[in-house]
């Protein structure tokens, strides 16, 4: 029946059920809290302030009661004012507290009682205040009366003082007279009697003095009389004293009488009547008694106030306790309700979720999701949950439709793949090159028939998809298909695998049957390798033919080179110089060398020996010339024509210097060669003459179109030749022009001038000695060669012993020479 609502409706229903319980629980909790709050409010708003106010009131009442006696004890107006104001402030505060209490309390009876007590206290304090004012007035009056008493006493004492002084004087005189024995007894007696009479006249004044003192003393004491009865008693002696003073006033010196009576009158006023000292004391006593009474009343009122307030506080306390209990009860019930609601809410939630949500929703959802996973995993035949009318039922229905569609799509895809594969095979079969595709693990995926045909025509090698590349090449190498792999099978396989895995430029492989195959391998992005094989055998054969011809040409060229100066050769072969008739003028250093007396020396030699000697000589010289960079123009018999400055030049000066150095080197070599030649039987050593000149010449190719010669022409050549002829054998002769270029480096000796045919002026000549550098620290060797005598001595190189030996040898030789043969 519930299916009508759908999942949404049912879930909503479940949540509403849970929420309803929660709302109910919250409402119950709220109600409980409100109840507790109300009770707490009642306590904090009503009871507690009331109790606090009551307590404050009680304390204030006590404070007022305590401060009241201070009012009474104040002795001055100012002090009284201060104390009274302080008490007034306390009282006002008390009344304020009472007013506050009146507004707050519920117990009107107690408040009325308190109010009455406070009113009484106020009244009482006012009365006390008035009383103190009265007392201060009385005290002031008393003090004024005392001052008057003092003044009156002084004034009256002053009045009797002269008389007493005179009396004292007379008394002393009388004492003197009675003591004076020089006087006659009758005169003495008479004088004494006169003095006694005179003294007697002053006795009333003395009495008055005593009474004045007595009155003063008694009146002073009166101010401290403890009770009114004492006052009454005191009046009697005072009145008696007054009577005495009255009597005295009639007897006193008439000049002073009026004043004395005036003073007595003042005493009377101080003793009796409304403004008397006893009366003032009496008033004071009355005021004090009243004050005591008021204070007692004050204390009583304060106590009753405190008692009433205590009752109020007790009542407030009781109410607070009751409210507290009430609050506790409500709180307890509230807690119960909240806990119950919470439990029921939890229970209902569990039941709804367990009985309904889990069983009728989650279980079915689980089935649907299982089916979905199965389909996703490829199992399109997995069972599907039953369809239904609610959301899950519709989900199952949708899943079924989805599965059917998936089955259809799968079948179509398989067809498409087969078609595409066929097309690919057709395509690769149609190309003329061999094609093979290996996957990431180097297994053959695909190959065309040309591949087999080209590489593995032997059917023994399987080329099934899945065969590894290593297997294929190893089999082909074993069968001798690969020229390279002969005798080094494992090595080659490793090389080939490495190349296959890291393919580079296309390369060529020589097959066992003599064919050349170009292999072009490429890694493809998917991780495999594509290999294309092309047969390039024909191409390769043509290339070999060409190489053979080229080698023959090179050999020919090398032979030809020997007939040319190396410089000329290289510049021609490098293409720097054209082979054509052309010439140019350049400043060159020209060198002629010749062997002195060659014809005479070689005349008796066999032709073969001569050839060998000459070739040896020319080879040695040519080598030196080449080393110094000379261009060898030509050999003419034993003479050599060389020049510096073309086709390459280092500069005129450097060329000249190189030329002279070369000449020196040649002479040095010649002396070394002489020894070799002596050993092979040439008795007379060959000695070389060299001439050098520096000047402008024409250099280039001269001759006909068929045959030309690279040479120099000009007067300078002739001059060089002439210098050579002038040079003593074994020396180098240079012209001034050359000398000018080399004089800084080479040590030369001027040799005089020579005339040259075709040159108008004579030419200065210089004999080259050596490099200046060599001359500096040279160890001059002693060399002498004569027939049957040869001396070669290098003293600087010898040790002391060697020198001694050499000296002995030479001396010996000298001795032998000085002895005539046969002697």
């Amino acid at each position, binding site marked *: 029946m519930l299916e009508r609502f759908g999942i949404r409706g049912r879930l909503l229903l479940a949540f509403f059920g849970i929420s309803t319980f929660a709302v109910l629980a919250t409402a119950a909790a709220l109600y409980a809290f409100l109840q507790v709050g109300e009770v707490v409010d009642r306590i904090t708003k009503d009871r507690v302030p009331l109790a606090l106010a009551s307590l404050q009131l009680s304390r204030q009442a006590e404070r007022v009661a305590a401060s009241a006696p201070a009012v009474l004890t104040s002795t001055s107006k*100012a002090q009284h004012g201060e104390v009274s104001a302080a008490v007034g402030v306390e009282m006002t505060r008390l009344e304020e507290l009472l007013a506050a209490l009146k507004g707050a309390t519920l117990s009107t009876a107690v408040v009325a009682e308190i109010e009455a007590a406070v009113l009484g206290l106020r009244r009482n304090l006012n009365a006390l205040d008035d009383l103190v004012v009265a007392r201060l007035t009385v005290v002031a009056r008393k003090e004024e009366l005392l001052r008057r008493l003092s003044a009156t006493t*002084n*004034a009256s*004492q*002053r009045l009797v*003082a*002269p*008389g007493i*002084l*005179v009396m*004292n*004087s007379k*008394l*002393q*005189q009388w004492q*003197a007279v009675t003591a004076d024995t020089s006087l006659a007894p009758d005169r003495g007696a008479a004088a004494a009697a006169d003095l006694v009479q005179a003294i007697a006249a002053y006795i009333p004044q003395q009495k008055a003095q005593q009474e004045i003192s007595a009155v003063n003393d008694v009146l002073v004491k009166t101010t401290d009389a403890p009770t009114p009865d004492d006052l009454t008693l005191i009046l009697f002696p005072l009145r008696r004293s007054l009577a005495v003073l009255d009597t005295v006033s009639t007897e006193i*010196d008439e*000049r*002073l009488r*009026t*004043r004395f009576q*005036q003073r007595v009158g003042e005493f009377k006023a101080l003793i009796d009547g409304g403004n008397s000292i006893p009366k003032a004391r009496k008033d004071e006593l009355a005021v004090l008694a009243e004050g005591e009474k008021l204070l007692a009343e004050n204390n009583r009122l304060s106590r009753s106030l405190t008692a009433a307030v205590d009752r109020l506080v007790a009542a407030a306390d009781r109410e607070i306790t009751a409210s507290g209990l009430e609050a506790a009860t409500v709180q307890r019930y509230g807690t119960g309700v909240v806990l119950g609601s919470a439990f029921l809410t939890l229970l209902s939630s569990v039941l709804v979720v367990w009985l309904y949500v889990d069983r009728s929703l989650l279980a079915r959802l689980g089935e649907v999701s299982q089916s979905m996973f199965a389909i996703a995993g490829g199992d399109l035949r997995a069972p599907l949950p039953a369809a239904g009318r609610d959301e899950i039922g519709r989900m199952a229905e949708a899943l079924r439709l989805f599965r059917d569609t998936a089955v259809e799509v799968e079948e179509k895809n398989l067809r498409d793949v087969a078609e595409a594969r066929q097309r690919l095979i057709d395509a690769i079969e149609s190309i003329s090159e061999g094609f093979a595709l290996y996957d990431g693990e180097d297994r053959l995926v695909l190959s065309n028939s040309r591949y087999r045909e080209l590489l593995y025509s032997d059917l023994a090698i399987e080329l099934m998809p899945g065969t590894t590349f290593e297997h294929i090449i190893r089999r082909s190498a074993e069968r001798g298909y690969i020229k390279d792999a002969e005798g080094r099978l494992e090595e080659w396989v490793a090389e080939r695998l490495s190349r296959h895995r890291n393919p580079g430029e296309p390369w060529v492989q020589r097959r066992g049957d003599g064919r050349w195959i170009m292999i072009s391998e490429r890694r493809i992005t998917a991780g495999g390798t594509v290999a294309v094989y092309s047969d390039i055998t024909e191409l390769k054969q043509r290339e070999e033919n060409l190489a053979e011809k080229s080698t023959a040409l090179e050999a020919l060229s090398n032979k030809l080179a020997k007939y040319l100066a190396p410089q000329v050769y290289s510049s021609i072969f490098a293409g720097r110089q054209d082979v054509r008739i052309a010439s140019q003028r350049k400043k060159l250093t020209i060198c002629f060398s010749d062997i002195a007396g060659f014809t005479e020396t070689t005349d008796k030699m066999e032709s073969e020996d001569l050839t060998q000697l000459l070739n040896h000589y020319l080879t040695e010289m040519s080598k030196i010339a080449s080393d110094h960079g000379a261009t060898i123009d030509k050999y003419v018999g034993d003479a050599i024509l060389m020049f510096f400055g073309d086709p390459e030049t280092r500069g005129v000066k450097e060329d000249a210097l190189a030329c002279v150095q070369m000449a020196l080197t040649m002479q040095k070599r010649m002396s070394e060669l002489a020894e070799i030649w002596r050993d092979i039987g040439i008795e007379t050593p060959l000695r070389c003459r060299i001439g050098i000149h520096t000047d402008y010449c024409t250099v280039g190719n001269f001759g006909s179109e068929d045959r030309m010669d690279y040479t120099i022409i000009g007067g300078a050549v002739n001059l060089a030749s002439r210098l050579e002829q002038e040079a003593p054998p074994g020396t180098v002769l240079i012209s001034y022009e050359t000398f000018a270029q080399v004089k800084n480096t080479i040590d030369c000796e001027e040799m005089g001038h020579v005339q040259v045919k075709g040159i108008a002026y004579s030419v200065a000549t210089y004999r080259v000695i050596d490099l200046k550098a060599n001359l500096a620290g040279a160890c001059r060797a002693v060399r002498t060669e004569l027939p049957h005598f040869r001396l070669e001595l290098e003293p600087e190189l010898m040790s002391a012993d060697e020198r001694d030996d050499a000296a002995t040898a030479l001396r010996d030789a000298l001795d032998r020479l000085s002895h005539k043969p046969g002697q």
Partner: protein
Amino acid sequence: MHRIIAMAILVLAAAFSSARAEVLIGVSSAMTGRLAWFGEQAQRGAEMAVADINATGGVLGQQMRLITADDFCDPEQAVAAAQKLVGDGVVLVVGHYCSGASIPASKVYEAAGVLQISPGSTNPLLTEQGRANVFRVIGRDDTQGIVAGNYLAEHWSNSKIAILHDGTTYGKGLADETRKQLNKRGVVEAIYEEYTPAKNDYSAEIAALEAANIAVAYVGGYHAEVALMVSAARDRGYTVQLVSGDGMATEEFALIAGPAAEGTLFTFPADARRNPEAASVVERFRAENFEPAGYTLLSYAAVQAWSQAVDKAGSLELQAVIAALRGNQFDTVLGRIDFDNKGDLTSQNWVWYVWRGGEYVPVE
């Protein structure tokens, strides 16, 4: 707001009125003992002056109140009395009477910043101490001594003159000044002696004078002793002229001496009772059955001069009042008076009086 202001005004007014309640004035003299009659004069004079000035509005609008302190004419008690008055907060002390009391007390007043005006102390030292707070409304003994010396020289140059003193500041001071002037005038006293004051009988001293044949005796001392001396002389029938200073100006002299008082001479400032300015005051004293003799009116004048000085200064502040006292003239029952910078009267006038019929009258 208004209430607060009203309260503030009330509080201020209360404070003001309590501060202005009264101005305390002290009077100190011998209120008991042999010189009590002089004390009475000083007190009565000051009392009447205070009452009269209060009746016309007081000083600076404040009422005055008089406090009395008894110094017994004793130097030590005088200091105690001065301290009591200072403690009570007086601004003026009218006193003391005896020079021997005034001089030590002046030190206390100076330290406390209290003005002192003496109605009866004549010893020069009082105003020679350089205390700015000290004034007096009576002449100095150096002028009184000159008057007395001259008088003795003029009248008794051929008789034997005795000069006696009681050894007090006043008595000895006055006797010495008189002797100095007398000697200056070329007259030399026959006797110069000190007697003990406060005795009841001076017969021995008089007998000695009689023996020395003294015709006139100048006594530097107070009235009681002089009275006993004249009594003793009369008792002996010895006629000797006693001459003394201002310390004689009390009725008590006649009361003690009786008929012997007749003819005794003394110097005193011009009797103010005869001044027209004093007439109403004198009349009122007499109505109270009190004769304002001696220093009564001097005391009255002291308070008058002070109150006028305060009004002129417009302040109770000591220095202002001192300046006003020094810089102004004052109309008093003594007539118009003014003070020099030492605090003495610029005009000091001594008049001779003689006792006749129980009272003193100017010598004709």
